[in-house]
């Protein structure tokens, strides 16, 4: 049973981690909680849904190859979502740089309400059922049962995380993001275009969130326009758990949260599933205020 819960936890945790990365990246460069990020994730799920329902209209060579088709869906949905991230920053955050700290938070909440209702109006308030496409057959191996889809999800999340890790540490833009999070002023002095860096950060975060959205949609089989709220909060919890602003921290935090939830739901009570995350969060913050992977400070004031 333990392994079963663990596997389910890892599946969900991977998505939490992907969304949490978006929070952490943005927090790193702007020191801002992007509260509309959960809605980007929700929009990603809907884009995935729309694209999958378009499959019958696609060219036959695509329809034949399930894996290729899923790749196309994932990439297109994520690319469109990256644009959402780009415009979100441009419209809601950029005019507010240097404004009082709570101001961008409120406009983020406004954006969140706007996007939710936009999707509700255009797609309806009902749950949308994902077409069952790939890998729904259950495989049982040593008492642990899982679907092929679950494996694909786990591997894709890990691959995406590796990709973002590579992006941050090995590419020019990634290094610029890193530099900007450490010291935006110095970064601008050495010729980094901070505006571009911020846009790219939002796009990268939204890209990952959209992938998470599509995968979660496929995994649960149905999506709703309110999906972004809880997903967003939990991913944010995961980001804080690992130490917000810390990229490996967000990954660890995401997996940890997924596993804790799955174990809690499995061994105690599933009604309180959402509570465990918050209790763990409060406990971690009280004993390690900078998060699990954050650095300690000895300032007392």
């Amino acid at each position, binding site marked *: 049973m333990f392994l079963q819960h663990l596997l389910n936890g890892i599946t969900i945790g991977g998505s939490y981690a992907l969304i949490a990365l978006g929070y952490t990246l943005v927090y790193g460069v702007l020191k801002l909680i992007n509260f509309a990020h959960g809605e980007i994730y929700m929009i990603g799920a809907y884009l995935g849904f729309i694209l999958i329902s378009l499959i019958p209209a696609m060219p036959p060579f695509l329809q034949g190859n399930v894996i290729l088709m899923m790749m196309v869906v994932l990439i297109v949905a994520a690319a469109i979502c990256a644009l959402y991230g780009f415009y979100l920053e441009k419209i809601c955050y950029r005019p507010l740089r240097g404004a009082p700290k709570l101001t961008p938070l409120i406009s983020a909440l406004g954006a969140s309400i706007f996007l939710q209702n936009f999707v509700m109006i255009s797609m309806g308030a009902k749950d949308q059922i994902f077409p069952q496409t790939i890998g729904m057959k259950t495989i049982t191996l040593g008492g642990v049962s899982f679907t092929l889809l679950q494996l694909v999800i786990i591997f894709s999340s890990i691959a995406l995380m590796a990709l973002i890790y590579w992006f941050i540490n090995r590419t020019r833009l990634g290094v610029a993001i890193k530099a900007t999070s450490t010291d935006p002023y110095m970064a601008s002095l050495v010729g980094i275009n901070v505006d571009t860096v911020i846009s790219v950060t939002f796009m990268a975060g939204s890209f990952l969130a959209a992938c998470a959205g599509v995968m979660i949609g496929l995994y649960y089989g149905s999506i709703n326009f309110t999906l972004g709220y809880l997903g967003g909060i939990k991913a944010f919890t995961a980001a804080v758990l690992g130490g917000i602003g810390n990229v490996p921290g967000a990954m660890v935090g995401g997996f940890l949260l997924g596993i804790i939830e799955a174990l809690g739901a499995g061994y105690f009570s599933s009604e309180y599933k959402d509570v465990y995350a918050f209790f763990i969060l409060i406990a971690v913050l009280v004993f390690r205020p900078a998060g699990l992977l954050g650095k300690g400070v*000895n*300032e*007392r*004031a």
Partner: protein
Amino acid sequence: MTASDILTTDSLSVTFGGVKALAGVSISVRQGEILSIIGPNGAGKTTFFNAVTGAYAPTGGRVFLSGREITDMGPDQVARLGLARSFQNLKPFAEMTLLENVLVGREIHMASGMLAAILRSPAFHRDEAAQKQRARELLSFVGLEQRRDQLARNLTYGERKMLEIARALALEPSVLLLDEPVAGMNPTETGFVMELVQNIRRQGITVVIIEHDMKMVMGISDRIYVLDHGELIAEGLPHEVRANPAVIEAYLGGGTLAPAH
């Protein structure tokens, strides 16, 4: 430690992630004197203030104020015991008026309770009026009385420094720590601050100053301590310190000691 020592530290140390910012500094400040702490940038002077006032938790050593150990106390307890400070990176309450800024410093001397504040009882009005009167006196002491109803964010750099001093004095401290009170000021303003510090001492308040301006340091200090790399490298009267080879050595490459006037 002798009876006239009001503030003493005993091998005070602060370590940041393996780096020793302060390595066992022992000093003693005598009642009623003006003491300066000098040293090159990064010598650990501000860290020393932070460790003494409880803003940082010292990693070793002890601090005594009037014979009482204050090593493990928080900044607010230390302040209540009569140790006030100003900040190098100015920290005025930007969205409050000057008068309110100083009134915050009077907080520990205010007696009226919450119920009195809600009911606006006579005791509350008396208390407020008395403290406002005191705050105005302090503002006029630093020359800001005319601007008392302006928001602190509208002040110039020099005025902010004055406001910080007034605010710290509002505590009625026995020891006042000033972190670079004249940095960035012109000679006229510096002269004003020097006079101000003398006046503060005349009120019986011991003053400890961190400063780079050698004209000020040599002009008003009774004694000088010199810090370098978190360690005490010299102490003595101004002319002794100026002639000390270790001090000259520490300043080489950085700034040089300005000649005394």
